[in-house]
């Protein structure tokens, strides 16, 4: 007898059963264990006298793409009749939606799967950035506050916490934490023990999975408000640190500058003193102070911007700086922590460096550097020797020593060609800002903030610098316009939107027509 076939109701009208199956949709990315999670859910349902059906559309999506899994389950009937379960979710008719990553929860809402009448939305609040977010030359990270806001209106219940962190802490996969959160949410009519039995039955990595399950369960039962990482939270305080010379700078800064600028000045001072010396710190305060006269009342935004970007401009990335950062004891410790090395393991570090003659010349005394630059053929010949990738094994004495000595060149830095160029460039920029500041402080601030475009090394640095120069020239041309600050900000954003600067060029072309 074919028990799976629905009976043919040939005897006229039959009372329709209004029972609906419980539906669960799981949105996960390849490699997150979405399939494992769904198998557990099916096992769980079947163990509790339900008939469950799951399906998915992985295709090539398993290669890091987004995948939707869908499960329906209904209490089995005593007469053995089989339900007809759907193979895909109906928008608005899903009881539980699980997003294995925050934006996947967002995607579920976009697709209409989440409804305020019936859906429990369970999401891991961690972010796994998409390629589109990662490749922007600036900050391409999407604003996840929008997902939280949407969830408040879209879902009947919303549960979110960082399940990736719990998975890492318990040495398991996020799928087990999600399964725990599902149990803790109590949205399915099954006891906790039944969930754990399903994990045991699958028989793979049971102990770690159960630990992660418990963590997920607790997370759902005792919900903590989702905390999202905010940039720049750890601003240092402008306070003495116990070094007489540095503390003198601090005292001066506290006396001269408005309190709103203290935090950023503290960060800036640390950066430039760490980069060079105490005298450099004095120079820094002198430069920032040139913007004090343009301050209107208590509005310290211009001074704050100056304090931030002058520090960045002064602490530019040269070979001395890189050698210094790479050889520090604190850096060795950080690497060990980052790669989660156990105390009894040895960690060897290899750097990937590609020095060019430009870097060599920049580190030479200015006159000597210029002498070389005037001889392009010699330069080219030398570049052929210098310019190649080098694997620098910093943890060996043979490689550590030269880097260490290079870092020691810091005391000669002020005499180098690179430094002279940086200073000249910096002064021209600040001059332009000051020139604007008298009549238009907002424009001055926008000009100062253009400095964000200068970053990177080698070609990337050259590209950033050329964008900066173009934008600065355009800013100076716009000086007379009332909406100049807006335009300059737009230029900066355009420059950060793509690598080649095509969008910036377009924006500059637009400005030319104004």
């Amino acid at each position, binding site marked *: 007898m074919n028990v799976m076939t629905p009976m043919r109701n040939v005897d006229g009208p039959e009372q329709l059963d209004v029972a609906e199956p419980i539906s669960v949709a799981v949105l996960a990315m390849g490699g997150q264990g979405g399939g494992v999670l769904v198998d557990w859910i099916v096992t769980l349902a079947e163990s509790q006298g339900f008939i469950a059906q799951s399906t998915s559309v*992985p295709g090539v999506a398993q290669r890091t793409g987004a995948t939707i899994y869908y499960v329906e389950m209904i209490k089995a009937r005593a007469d053995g009749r089989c339900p*007809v379960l759907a193979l895909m979710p109906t928008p608005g008719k899903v009881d539980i939606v699980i997003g294995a990553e925050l934006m996947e929860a967002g995607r579920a809402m976009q697709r209409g799967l989440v409804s305020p009448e019936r859906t429990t939305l369970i999401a891991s609040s961690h972010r796994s950035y*998409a390629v589109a977010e990662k490749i922007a030359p600036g900050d391409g*990270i999407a604003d996840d506050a929008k997902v939280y806001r949407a969830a408040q209106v879209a879902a009947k219940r919303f549960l979110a916490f960082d399940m990736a962190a719990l998975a890492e802490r318990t040495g398991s996969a996020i799928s087990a934490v999600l399964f725990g959160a599902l149990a803790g949410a109590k949205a399915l009519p099954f006891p906790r023990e039944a969930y754990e039995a399903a994990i045991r039955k699958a028989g793979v990595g049971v102990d770690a999975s159960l630990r992660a399950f418990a963590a997920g369960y607790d997370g759902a039962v005792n919900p903590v408000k989702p905390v999202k990482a905010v940039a720049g939270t750890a601003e240092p305080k402008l306070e003495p640190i116990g070094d007489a010379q540095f503390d003198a700078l601090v005292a001066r800064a506290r006396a001269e500058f408005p309190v709103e600028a203290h935090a950023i000045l503290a960060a800036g001072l640390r950066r430039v003193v760490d980069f060079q010396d105490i005298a450099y710190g004095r120079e820094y305060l002198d430069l920032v102070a040139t913007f004090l006269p343009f301050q209107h009342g208590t509005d310290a935004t211009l001074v704050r911007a100056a304090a931030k970007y002058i520090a960045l401009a002064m602490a530019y990335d040269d070979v001395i700086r890189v050698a210094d950062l790479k050889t520090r004891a604190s850096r060795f410790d950080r690497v060990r922590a980052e790669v989660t090395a156990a105390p009894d393991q040895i960690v060897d570090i290899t750097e990937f460096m590609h020095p060019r003659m430009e870097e060599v010349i920049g580190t030479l005394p200015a006159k000597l550097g210029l002498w070389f630059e005037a001889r392009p053929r010699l330069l080219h010949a030398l570049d052929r020797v210098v310019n190649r990738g080098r694997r620098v094994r910093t943890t060996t*004495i043979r490689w550590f020593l030269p880097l260490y000595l290079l870092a020691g060149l810091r005391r000669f830095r002020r005499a180098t060609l690179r430094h002279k160029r940086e200073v000249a460039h910096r002064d021209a920029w600040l001059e332009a800002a000051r020139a604007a500041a008298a009549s238009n402080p907002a424009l001055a601030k926008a000009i100062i903030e253009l400095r964000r475009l200068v970053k990177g090394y080698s070609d990337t640095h050259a590209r950033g610098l050329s964008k900066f120069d173009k934008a600065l020239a355009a800013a100076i041309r716009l000086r007379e316009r009332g909406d100049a600050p807006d335009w300059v900000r737009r230029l900066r954003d355009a420059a950060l939107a793509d690598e080649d600067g095509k969008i910036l060029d377009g924006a500059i072309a637009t400005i030319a027509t104004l």
Partner: protein
Amino acid sequence: MAERSFAKEVADLRLGAGQEFRGEGILAITKALLQSGVGYVGGYQGAPISHLMDVLSDAQDVLAELGVHFETSASEAAAGAMLSASVMYPIRGAVTWKSTVGTNVASDALANLASGGVKGGALIIIGEDYGEGSSIMQERSHAFAMKSQIWLLDPRPNLESIVKAVEDGFELSEASNTPVMLEVRIRACHVHGRFIAKDNKPPPFTLAQALENPQRDTGRIVLPPAAFVQEKEKIAQRLPAAIEFIKTRKLNETFDGELADIGIVLQGGLYNGVIRALQQLGLADVWGATRVPLYVMNVTYPLIDSELAAFCSGKSAVLMVEEGQPEFIETALHAILRKAEISTKIYGKDVLPVAGEYTAEALSAGLRAFLAATMPDALPEQIRGRNEPAQPIADEIKALAAVVPPRPPGFCTGCPERPIFAAMKLVEKELGPHHVSADIGCHLFSILPPFNIGATTMGYGLGPASASAFNVKAGKRPIAMIGDGGFWHNGLASGIGNAVFNRHDGVIMVVDNYYSSATGGQDIPSSRADNRSRSTKHPIADAVKGVGASWVRQIDRTYDVAKVRDTLKEALTTNEKGPKIIVASSECMLNKQRRVKPLFNRAVKAGQRMVRERFGVDEDVCSGDHACIRLSGCPSLSVKRTDDPLKDDPVAAVDNSCVGCGNCGEVAEAAVLCPSFYRADIVHNPTTFDRLLARLRGAVIGFLQRHRDRRRIAFS
């Protein structure tokens, strides 16, 4: 060796009569084949039917016990041709592939097979890759069935029905001397369900018996005049036999409902969706009881005119639910009713979408429109009045469009194909963009950000052939991509042989990652693994030279970005004529990790000295430009926000999923990016010598570090 091991599923293949099978749809089909006494099985892997091939690959012992021959065919054409064993001998054979692409490739063999007809049951199991999750062009396999007169089964998507369709399919094939296609949609392939198993049956007539008693019949060979006779035979004998079999065995199903004035005609595969849509309109329940009569076509070709006429007659209107286009069945239904002088109005593509998958929403809207037009009183009050979704979409939801990023598939962490495209990107920066003919395979992800490389795809293994027109004098040469899978599928002849013969002056980049990776890591002739039932280790470079290519460069480590870049530059600029072929080889990282990780962990546990490599980024050196990511896109290379109030932009960061493939460092070096990247070699179970050396280094380095730290102002 495939990506997934099917040891557990193989045990399910041994289930006997009365035992319950629980599992995936495609595995149920595999079991059904063995229950049906199949004699041989072939096919070509590809979603959604890869698991059928994989589980049989892992089930060699079961197959040997039963005397079933299983072959991993070189292509769908090879698989289709394999069915010729059923032409003269009473042996059941089954082949499988992804459709319509696979059916395209196989159609030459299928047309010949269908013309001559078969004696043993010939079943073609097609994974209909249509709708969400599909990776191919959106077409219907239905057209192939019609043009070659192959019967097409489209069973209801539950395991019991699918398994029955396999058994019915063989019998139908034998009863009508015609090959039969069994169409299974993506979700049905992956559906988890259950059915009561039967005992496996060894084939009653074996391939060995056939070989030892060869038979021939020129009437079965497609050559005039037999070909003309065969066409007549199709119409005069095979079709009526098929119709008779379908009718008497009741392969199509009718579900009665009290709203007898209307009805729904549907493809079997859409049954669950239609029931759910009816349920939401209050006209059916989850147990399959329906108020609207249904005619479910588990056979969608040929149509049974008399059954359709009988179902429609006396009804004022029927809805034809037919997924995809053109609407062959709906058109035929019009003709059938017209000829039978039945005036029932037919709804179909006027209320349902013409193209695209019949999702829950599409079916729901279509059924509502049909009922509103034909029997509005049957609809519950709250639904009848409603045309639009009850609530407008909230602004908060609309705002998601700006933040939820697209997440297309991409190269895995540590993928050996990534450095190839990074190198191509570097060449592009030097020599400008080139026309790149892409191919099918994981390497096609190059068309997406961050690489944005590749202009066209013309089919599996056809990358080089699709560049063949560009064999003219020009300032730049074309570049064609092809994977090792496509290479052995047909590319050796259609791509390399073609280029050699026509003196093609372009560059062909063969991406060799030791497996047919995109389909699940199956072995192919150039695989480097030992395979107990297949012959592997046939180098692609040898094959290429064998068909006459002379400019051939073998790169044995694709992660050497500088080498790939320089080789490609040489290929684009050399004066040598003829195809320039670069074979870039490194093992698929997904499969390598699966192979190596357990070995590594075991060795560490056993106390052996093992080195794990991992990459990292010095966050204070990184300036947040992300140029490295634009040449990578690796999932483990991401960005993170820092605590540094002076940094506006997030810095690059490598997470713990890094497998230490080396791409980051190589790219940073080759592209002269920045010195932020480091590689950490983590030595597990260091030897005494390691420890001594580390202590010595630590002492010297530590002394110098402390010396400098003392002279530096300490900030927190």
